[in-house]
């Protein structure tokens, strides 16, 4: 098995991620959060959903699941780790990514396609994309509003670790095209080693034209490629 898709109680996008991986010709397998063994996976995806009901705080309880110490260990070896939506929130809570995600500006759940601009290709999520490319990918979250303490935010920006920002169709970035109030329109980020990435939109929902958009492919293909040719650090 190459890619482990972690299932917490309350996770609900696990089957969609596995389906998308199959569409891209990669094999992925589900791993239960109580397992403490990633069974030789070369990469990990934390899919979307509502781990532990999002109770207490989104991602807060999931980070203590036995599997998370394995995820952390794998991340430290430089293996690709991706968090989508709730998975992004879990990675932030676990300290594998900077910042946190809070309630959307308008206090309403948002399910609709949004446009994001690729800001950097230095991540397992964007390696195969073009800087400046604009992708149309569904957003599906209530807590997608990215925040970070000023110093950490400055460091994140300075290090070029913001990989995706909400934009208009032409790539212009402004408040009018910030769906949820995210600081600096941040939609996706990576870590310093650029092997751990998280984003709020759902690329797995945009790999087949018949479902409206295939723009998510380039992101997931980046991830799959980096799983096949791991950059150990």
């Amino acid at each position, binding site marked *: 098995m190459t890619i482990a898709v972690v299932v917490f109680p309350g996770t609900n996008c696990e089957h969609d991620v596995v389906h998308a991986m199959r569409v891209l010709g990669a094999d992925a397998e589900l791993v239960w959060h109580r397992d403490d063994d990633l069974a030789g996976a070369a990469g990990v995806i934390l899919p979307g959903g509502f781990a532990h009901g999002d109770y207490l705080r989104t991602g807060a*309880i999931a980070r203590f699941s036995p599997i998370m110490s394995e995820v952390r260990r794998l991340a430290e070896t430089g293996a690709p780790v991706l968090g989508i939506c709730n998975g992004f929130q879990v990675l932030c809570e676990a300290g594998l990514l900077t*910042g*946190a995600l*809070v*309630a959307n500006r308008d206090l309403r759940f948002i399910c609709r396609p949004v446009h994001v601009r690729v800001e950097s290709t230095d991540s397992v999520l964007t390696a195969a994309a073009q800087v400046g490319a604009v992708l149309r990918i569904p957003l599906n979250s209530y807590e997608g509003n990215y*925040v*970070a*303490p000023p110093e950490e935010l400055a460091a994140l920006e300075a290090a070029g670790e913001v990989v995706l920002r909400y934009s208009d169709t032409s790539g212009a970035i402004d408040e009018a095209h910030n769906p949820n109030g995210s*600081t600096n329109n941040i939609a996706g980020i990576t870590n310093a080693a650029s092997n751990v990435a998280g984003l709020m939109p759902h690329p797995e929902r945009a790999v087949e034209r018949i479902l409206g958009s295939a723009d998510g492919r380039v992101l997931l293909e980046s991830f799959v490629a980096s799983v096949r040719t791991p950059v150990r650090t």
Partner: protein
Amino acid sequence: MRVRVLITRKEGLADPEGVETHRALRDLGYGGVTEVHFGRIINLSVDGDDAVAAVAQAEEMCERLLANPVIEDYSVEVVE
């Protein structure tokens, strides 16, 4: 004994619930309200009657789980 944990968003970080509620209060005519901040209450009942120990333990729970130190402040009060 009962302990009350209060968790609030750090100063300066987005508090959409607070902002939205402030707006709603103004719409209802409460112009005198100058600030609205949201937070979470977690009431805990714990064994034993050593208040100091109970508070210390609750603070540890906050550090580990109940609060997110990156974006939240917390305080612990003994209720009775």
